[in-house]
Every structure is written in structure tokens, then in C-alpha cells.
């Protein structure tokens, strides 16, 4: 016999109540843990996504929409810009790099992004298999695209008009020439190709020729990803861009902060709800232990007769609270990670956001001691009552 065995015997005796207590604690921990995990993963992913991009220049419209569509690939761009309109930025002395991107098509539900090979360097992408595109209609697959679709170097596929699938561009098959290494960013879910490929599939039917420069037909891109050469550019360039009637310059860091504050409000509300649930769970532990104390008054008196000190009875009640809270914490944390992992695997929006149950959030493990502490506070009142119990009176009354 040990205190733990005695504790588990008592918990088994009132199994239903114990399950209810554990469930309440687990629910509270689940919600708080999910909020922490989602919050930290979103923040980390957003920061990783915008790394190396100081300014996104696109068509006039919402700057947040521009960032969401071009950087995070989760919205539709507000329009295109003429290549000539942004040409001044490519040679501007305050610009270290300016990479054009063109969106508009997709394949198998994954977005096709036209750009230049420098896009790979700027976004920290390396080729795991094959090579970078050199000719129009050659494509490099993001790691997840290749894995999901089972495509290999040499495979051919057709793009569809629109970002969510539409009419297939049947005359213009793409050939896979490379597969990128996983980056843990949205790039893993992109199909990369040259700007010329995007332009070619959108020329009038039957014409495969890329419009020659200066022929009067404009070539358009969705945006230009700009990296500053000096911090001074952060002051001058947005002003310069926004002065152009057709252009808007959006700073990803600023828009991401806005996005996080919007999402953060919801997360904070959820976190508060989770803690309210945890406090409710602590209350249920308090009620359960108080009831147990009433049911067990004779047992506790008997234990004193058998040699138990008051301290041991307190330890027994505290242990019960700790076991309930500990079990609830473990169940809650496990469910949080399991649900997030399933969510991240099977729900497309969660996939796009890169949610995973396999990572730990900062501060998440503090939930366990925090919950245990709450349980100990909850158990304090019944424990003190057990300490002060009238032993002789209980024995006499039976």
C-alpha cells in the first residue's frame, strides 16, 4: 500500500466524478494549448514567410490583400501591373533586389507562380532534384506538390485558369524539370515556372509566341517583391511607389503585424475562455473533494486511529487533486496536439497555414504546473477541513 494506491482506490470509488473532473480540466487545457500552438505557429510562419521581402509592389487596392495573395498565397490579387510601370524599381539605387511574380493559374489545386530564377535565391529555395527552369513551360514543383501529386522530373501536366481551378490550358502542357527541397513555407505548395510561361498560356489561342518587347501589347505581372539595400529605402520607396497612380507598395512586416493583431484578438479571447474553463475545472475539483471529504469523514478518522498523521491526510487530498489535474493536463495537451495535427493534415485551410501538432509552443508546458497549482489551490479548503476535523467527535458519531 502506498499513498498513490490509496489515492487511486478512492478515485476508482467515485469514478464518474473523477472522469468529469478530468474532462473539465482537459477541455480547459485543450483550448489554451490550441490557442498557444496556433498563435505561435501562425506568428512563426508569418515571420518566416515575409523574411527577405521589404516591400511588395502591386496594383492599387488593399495592401493587406496584396500581401495575403502574393506572399501568403491565401487570397486573390486585386489586379496586375504593367512590367514597364515597375521597371524603375529594378534599377533604383535603394533596391537590392526586385523579383517579379505573376499569378493567375493553378494545377491540381496548387498555385502556379511565374517568376525569375532569382526568386529561388531570394526565398532561400534550393533544388532537391533536377534543375531550375530555363525555357518557357518548364516547371519546378514545391516539395509538397511533388509528394501529393506523385509527379517526378519529366512528368507533364496542364495548368488551369484561375487560382482554384478552372478551364484547362490544354494546348500548353508544363514539363517538370525540378523539385524543390522542403522549406516549411508556402513555397512547398507552389508550382514555380518562368514569367514567359504565364504570359504564353494567356496569349490568344494558337499563338505560342511571347509578345516581343515594345510591340504595343503590355506584359503584366502581379507584383514585384522588393528587398531594400539600406534602411533609408523604407522611408523613400513606399512614398515613391504610392505616388504612382496605378501602384501600391505594401510592407509585409507592417501588414503582418496588422494581421497578427486582428487574429491575435480572437486568440486572446479564446485563451481567456480556456482559462475560465480551467478555473471552472478547479472549482469542480474543489466541489468533488469537498463532497469526498463528507463521504470520507469516517475513513479519515479511521486512518488517524490507524496511525495516520494530519499531514498525511492533507497529502492524500492534495494528491487526489494533483492526479485529477495532471491527468486532465496530459489528456488536454495530447488532444490539442492530436487535433491540430489532424486539422493540419486534412483541412486545406489549416494545411495552407502550415498548422502542425508535432511542435511545442513556447510556454505550453507551463500549462501543466499552472493547472496543478490551480488544483492545489482548489484542494486547499477541503485539505484544511480534513486537518481540522474533530477526530473524537467523528468516531463517537460513527
Amino acid at each position, binding site marked *: *500500500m*502506498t499513498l498513490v*494506491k*490509496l489515492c487511486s*482506490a*478512492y478515485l*476508482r*470509488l467515485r469514478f464518474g466524478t473523477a472522469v468529469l473532473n478530468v474532462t473539465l480540466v482537459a477541455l480547459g487545457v485543450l483550448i489554451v494549448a490550441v490557442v498557444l500552438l496556433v498563435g505561435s505557429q501562425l506568428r512563426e510562419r508569418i515571420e518566416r514567410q515575409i523574411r527577405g521581402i521589404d516591400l511588395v509592389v502591386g496594383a492599387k487596392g488593399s495592401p493587406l490583400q496584396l500581401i495575403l495573395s502574393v506572399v501568403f498565397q491565401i487570397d486573390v490579387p486585386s489586379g496586375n501591373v504593367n512590367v514597364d510601370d515597375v521597371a524603375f524599381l529594378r534599377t533604383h539605387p535603394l533596391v537590392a533586389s526586385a523579383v517579379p511574380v505573376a499569378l493567375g493559374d493553378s494545377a491540381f489545386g496548387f498555385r502556379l507562380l511565374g517568376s525569375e530564377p532569382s526568386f529561388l535565391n531570394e526565398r532561400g529555395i534550393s533544388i532537391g532534384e533536377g534543375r531550375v527552369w530555363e525555357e518557357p513551360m518548364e516547371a519546378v514543383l514545391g516539395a509538397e506538390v511533388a509528394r501529393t501529386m506523385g509527379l517526378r522530373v519529366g512528368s507533364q501536366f496542364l495548368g488551369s485558369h484561375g487560382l482554384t481551378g478552372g478551364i484547362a490550358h490544354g494546348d500548353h502542357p508544363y514539363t517538370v524539370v525540378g523539385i524543390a527541397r522542403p522549406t516549411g513555407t508556402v513555397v512547398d505548395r507552389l508550382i514555380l515556372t518562368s514569367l514567359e510561361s504565364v504570359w504564353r498560356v494567356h496569349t490568344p489561342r494558337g499563338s505560342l509566341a511571347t509578345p516581343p518587347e515594345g510591340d504595343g501589347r503590355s506584359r503584366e505581372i502581379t507584383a514585384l517583391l522588393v528587398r531594400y539595400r539600406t534602411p533609408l529605402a523604407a522611408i523613400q520607396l513606399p512614398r515613391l511607389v504610392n505616388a504612382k497612380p496605378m501602384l501600391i507598395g505594401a510592407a509585409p512586416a507592417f501588414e503582418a503585424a496588422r494581421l497578427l493583431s486582428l487574429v491575435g484578438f480572437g486568440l486572446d479571447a479564446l485563451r481567456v475562455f480556456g482559462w475560465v474553463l480551467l478555473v471552472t475545472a478547479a472549482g469542480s475539483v474543489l466541489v468533488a473533494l469537498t463532497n469526498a471529504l463528507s463521504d470520507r469523514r*469516517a*475513513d479519515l*478518522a*479511521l*486512518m*488517524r*486511529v*490507524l*496511525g*495516520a*498523521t*494530519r*499531514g*498525511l491526510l492533507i497529502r492524500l487530498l492534495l494528491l487526489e487533486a494533483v492526479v485529477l489535474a495532471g491527468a486532465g493536463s496530459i489528456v488536454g495537451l495530447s488532444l490539442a496536439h492530436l487535433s491540430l495535427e489532424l486539422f493540419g493534415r486534412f483541412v486545406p485551410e489549416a494545411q495552407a497555414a502550415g498548422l502542425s501538432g508535432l511542435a511545442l509552443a513556447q510556454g505550453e508546458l507551463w500549462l501543466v504546473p499552472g493547472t496543478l497549482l490551480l488544483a492545489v489551490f482548489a484542494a486547499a479548503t477541503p485539505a484544511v477541513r480534513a486537518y481540522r476535523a474533530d*477526530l*473524537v467527535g467523528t*468516531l*463517537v458519531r*460513527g
Partner: protein
Amino acid sequence: MPSPSLWIVAVTTPAEPGAKQVVLVEGLRIVIGGRTLVGLDRWELREHARAVVLGPSGSGKTSFLHVLAGLRAPDGGRVIVAGHDLAELTETRRDAFRGRHIGYVLQSLHLVKALSVLDNLRLAAFLAGNSVPDAELRGLLQRVGLEDRTNAPTFELSQGEAQRVAIARALVNRPVLVLADEPTSALDDRNARSVVDLLLAVTADRGAALVVATHDARIVPFFDHRLELGSDR
């Protein structure tokens, strides 16, 4: 001065030669509700002693056992058990001392419902801080005739079986003193005789002194020490 209603008649047969002193009570007074229920100048029990404390309800029998067990402090005098003055021990030490040296069969049994029969015995060893092998505990259950109920939950036991478990549990830590409060009050003649025989036999096996508080006159002849409370004879 004791109040006129108080009394005690102590009838004692000589102890076995060489038997160690187990209980010594000197100048004991127990006052409840402003009324002195027990006054005892000197009372001594040695190993193998079999004492019965008699008296009607409310005469202080249970309180007397509580004092002997160190569960409540006397209102006067001192109680020495196995050479230890209970008043000189701190509460924590007194709890531990009681667990190790005193077995107690409570009036209303009080088996722990959450535990099996064997676990109730293990609990007694654990709370006393002793390590008693399961074989010894099973032997005790065999001694009280419950070897086939070892793993039974206590709520499945009959009143008589529960009584036997309580007796076995009181002996787990090889106490020098066993106290039993009204162990036969709810039993018929046959079962009362059986319980008394059992108490006498198992305490005799281990050389413990036995003190039984009862108002059951049927069992008095089995004891060699008699203490009557609530009498002025």
C-alpha cells in the same frame, strides 16, 4: 473531588510472572459535558491481560478507550502505554505510536470501502510505517477465517465478516495493546461468543493486552480484569 455518580470498580486477577507492563493509568479523570465520568487512581495491565470495561451507555467506556489510545487527552492524571507517557508525545508522534503499538477495533467497524479486505490490512501497515509481508497478512485473515475473502471488496462482507476483518486489521502491526469498543453489541449469542473467542485467541497468540469496552454482560466471564464505569459500588 469526583462527583457522586462516578464509579469504578476494578477487579483484577494477578498477572503472569515476568509479564511486562503494557498500560499504567494513574489519577485519571475524564470529564464530559462538565460531568466527571471516569476517575481512576491506578490501573495497570500487563502482557496477556484480558480486561473488560463495563458500564451503561454514556458511562464513558468509549472515552476511556480513546484516552488509552491517545485519541483524546485525559482531563487529569496520566496514561502510560508500553513505557510511553502519551501526554509527553507530540500529536504526530502519538499518531505514529498508536499506529505501531495499539490495535483498535472500532464500534462501527469503519472498514475503508474503497479497498479490498487485504488492502484494508495493508493500509494499517502502511499508516503505521511498517512493512508487513502479504503472507503474514493472509495468515492473519486465515486466523480469522477469511482466507477465501482476501480480495473481496469490503462492501460485500457480512457484518460478522467485517467484524473479523477489523479484528485482523487491529493485529497487523503486532500491537502490545488491543482495544475493542462494543465488539459484540449487535451480535447474537453464537456470533458474540465467536468474536470474543477470536479476540482472546489472536491477542493471546501475540501476547498483547486486550481491553474490551462493552455493556454486554454475556462476555464478562471470559475476562480476568473487570472495570465498571458509572457505578458507585
